[in-house]
């Protein structure tokens, strides 16, 4: 027995959910919900415990990187992709978030999904997701990471399309997978380039070698810049950044716990994780960093504007997720990787909570998701209301809630490192304002005011404790989850970034001004951020509580803007018109019907038919008339003589020509 059993057998952590998934998937169909529950929860819970134990051992052995090679997965030539897992500080954060939040959502799901068909299937998929997500975060090389990367995509596909009878659901699943694949295309090329450059895809060796690599100047598209951008393309796909974000709002077709787990807390943050994991590459490629920051910031703002007018409760949250992911990328882009990861973690808490609470609302409303048909729910489902409010406060960045700390850190970094123009910061701040507005809009529309539904038809009821329990835990996390950073406001150490320091060691962009100034600046910026959050809250209050008729009038007076926002800037339509439909048209009419059936097969068949026609012509010479035959013999005779006498005839023929 090794001294650190869990670190030695890291593979147990991901394997447990896989086993659960396999058992439920293969045999669960005939089992009752209780057995399915115990398998699913058991495997995830055990996995969580194992993760905790591993983390404990990790701390116990002094926070040194642990790397284990289990077996050769792919070997070819000098290429080796092993089934290698590793654990370091970054992994610790991710593993805990994944298993912890995942476990909570599993519990929640037992309540939420209790009356759905395909119960075993759902948990099988969910466990499968856990497996792949854990592989993703534990992987010690890019190829294995890619396994998790693709695998979570698969699980996402399966879960979005869980209600496969609905065309919209299966469409959304397909869309998610394909858009992700577009990102993966870049990710793969990035890996190839890295392998070509460094000859390995193992994190440790690769990063060590990349550390020696000279940093590329801004505006230079060197190897690392290209590689980083390609990796970032993958991240864009997975983390729903511009221009590949389109799948995420559609992904809300899946059951709500799925939205919470995959499309809010864990999977979509994988892109951030990869960027953070590859930070050394990005740091050496300022151009790539700049792109990451700009894309993140743009996405954050862009998604937030769409979120302003959405009426579907989950859609609002979806766009909010896109927006928050943008924040994380903004953080990474400006070099504040630890801030990004910090936000990733807090976001996992409050966004999971928001989704779960929204699920609880939907559950209570009997499946209704349109906020315009809700209202005044705070009395009937108080627990849900309370937890959701906490989450909203957190996301809006109200001080002392988790989101406040992480968001503040990001805005601060953006202010400091945006090259003087502060554009990134200003948009970040605007986004914070918008976030606050639409989140409170959601709260007000849902919980306050009059009930806009028929009470006789909809039987409002608070959710069971299996659902409320996780809500409460997550609410606590949403409050306290950010307190790692509390000391910084009193010029204390930033525990979170210190913990992650070995990963990002020395690579976070250098601070420019003196500590005191920085501290003052930080306080000022925090104040501005809080002010904007409060402003957003106030506007929401004014519009949706004080003057309930105002928003409609506003929408009418600015119909163009409103419709554009409501229809998400028509991006889906644009993609359909510019990419999807032309491609299908091209494939159908040009490639298949014209080139394949027409040109190529036409040529083949044409040759065959042409041969047949020539054959028929040859046959026509066989007229049956002996006189004609005699002519042919004569012609043949002349031909033979002509050919044999050609050497002699040639000069004669030449003369005739001249």
């Amino acid at each position, binding site marked *: 027995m090794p001294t650190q059993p869990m670190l030695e057998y890291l593979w147990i952590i991901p394997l447990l959910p896989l086993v659960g998934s396999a058992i439920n998937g293969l045999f669960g169909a005939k089992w009752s919900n209780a057995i399915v529950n115990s398998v699913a929860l058991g495997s995830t819970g055990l996995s969580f415990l194992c993760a905790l134990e591993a983390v404990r051992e990790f701390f116990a052995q002094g926070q040194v990187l642990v790397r284990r090679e289990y077996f050769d997965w792919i070997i070819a030539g000098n290429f080796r992709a092993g089934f290698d897992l590793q654990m370091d500080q970054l992994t610790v954060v991710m593993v805990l978030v994944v298993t912890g939040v995942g476990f909570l959502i599993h519990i929640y799901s037992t309540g939420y999904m209790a009356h759905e068909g395909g119960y075993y299937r759902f948990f099988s998929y969910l466990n499968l997701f856990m497996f792949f997500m854990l592989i993703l975060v534990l992987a010690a090389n890019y190829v294995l990471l890619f396994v998790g990367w693709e695998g979570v995509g698969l699980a996402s596909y399966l879960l979005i399309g869980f209600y496969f009878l609905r065309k919209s659901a299966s469409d959304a699943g397909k869309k998610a997978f394909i858009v992700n694949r577009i990102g993966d295309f870049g990710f793969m090329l990035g890996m190839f380039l890295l392998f070509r450059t460094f000859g390995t895809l193992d994190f440790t060796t690769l990063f060590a070698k990349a550390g020696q690599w000279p940093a590329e100047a801004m505006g230079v598209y060197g190897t690392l810049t290209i590689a980083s951008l390609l990796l970032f393309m993958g991240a864009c796909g997975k983390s729903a950044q511009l221009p590949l974000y389109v799948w995420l709002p559609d992904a809300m077709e899946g059951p709500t716990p799925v939205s919470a787990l995959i499309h809010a807390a864990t999977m979509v943050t994988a892109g951030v994780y990869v960027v953070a994991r590859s930070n050394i590459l990005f740091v050496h490629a300022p151009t790539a960093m700049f792109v990451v920051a700009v894309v993140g910031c743009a996405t954050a703002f862009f998604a937030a504007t769409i979120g302003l007018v959405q009426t579907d409760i989950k859609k609002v949250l979806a766009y909010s997720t896109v927006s928050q992911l943008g924040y994380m990328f903004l953080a990474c882009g400006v070099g504040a990787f630890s801030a990004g990861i910090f936000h990733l973690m807090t976001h996992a808490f409050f966004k999971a909570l928001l989704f779960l609470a929204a699920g609880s609302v939907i559950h209570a409303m009997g499946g209704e998701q349109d906020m315009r048909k809700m209202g005044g729910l705070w009395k009937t489902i108080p627990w849900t209301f309370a937890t959701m409010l906490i989450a909203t406060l957190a996301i809006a960045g109200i001080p002392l809630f988790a989101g406040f700390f992480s968001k503040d850190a990001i805005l601060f970094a953006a202010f400091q490192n945006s090259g003087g123009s502060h554009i990134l910061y200003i948009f970040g701040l605007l986004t914070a304002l918008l976030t606050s507005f639409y989140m409170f809009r959601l709260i007000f529309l849902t919980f306050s005011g009059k009930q806009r539904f028929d009470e006789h038809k909809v039987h409002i009821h608070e959710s069971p404790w299996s659902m409320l329990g996780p809500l409460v835990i997550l609410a606590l996390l949403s409050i306290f989850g950010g307190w790692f950073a509390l000391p910084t406001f009193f010029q204390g150490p930033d525990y979170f970034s210190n913990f992650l320091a070995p990963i990002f060691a020395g690579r976070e962009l250098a601070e420019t001004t003196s500590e005191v100034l920085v501290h003052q600046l930080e306080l000022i910026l925090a104040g501005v951020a809080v002010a904007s959050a409060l402003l957003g809250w106030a506007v929401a209050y004014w519009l949706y509580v004080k003057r309930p008729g105002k928003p409609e009038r506003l929408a009418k007076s600015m119909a163009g803007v409103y419709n554009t926002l409501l229809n998400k800037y028509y991006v889906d339509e644009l993609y359909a018109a510019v990419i999807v439909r032309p491609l299908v048209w091209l494939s159908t009419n040009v490639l298949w019907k014209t080139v394949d059936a027409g040109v190529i097969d036409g040529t083949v068949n044409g040759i065959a038919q042409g041969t047949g026609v020539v054959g028929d012509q040859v*046959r*026509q010479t*066989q*007229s*049956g*008339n*002996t*006189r004609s035959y*005699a*002519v042919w013999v*004569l012609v043949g005779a002349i031909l033979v003589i002509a050919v044999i006498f050609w050497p002699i005839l040639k000069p004669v023929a030449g003369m005739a020509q001249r």
Partner: protein
Amino acid sequence: MVPTQYYVILSAILFGLGVFAFIFKRNIISIFMSIELMLNAVNLAFVAFSQAKGQLDGQIFVLFVIVVAAAEAAVGLGIIILIARNRQSLNVERVDLLKL
């Protein structure tokens, strides 16, 4: 004396006329006769060469050719009778059941 050349040129002309006759004539018997004409042309060439070479071989060949021609005539006319009996026509162009 007459040069051998003259004979062979004559033989070539007769041969050519035979070829033309073969294609031109429609009556099977006439066509057959044009073959005989061609054979005669050949014979002339043989005799002429025989004389030119001072050998008798050529004349022997002529005898053989005549015998073969006789045999062919017997068979050919038999076939012609068969055709005439089967089809009531001696026009070679009307005998075109087998074609394509």
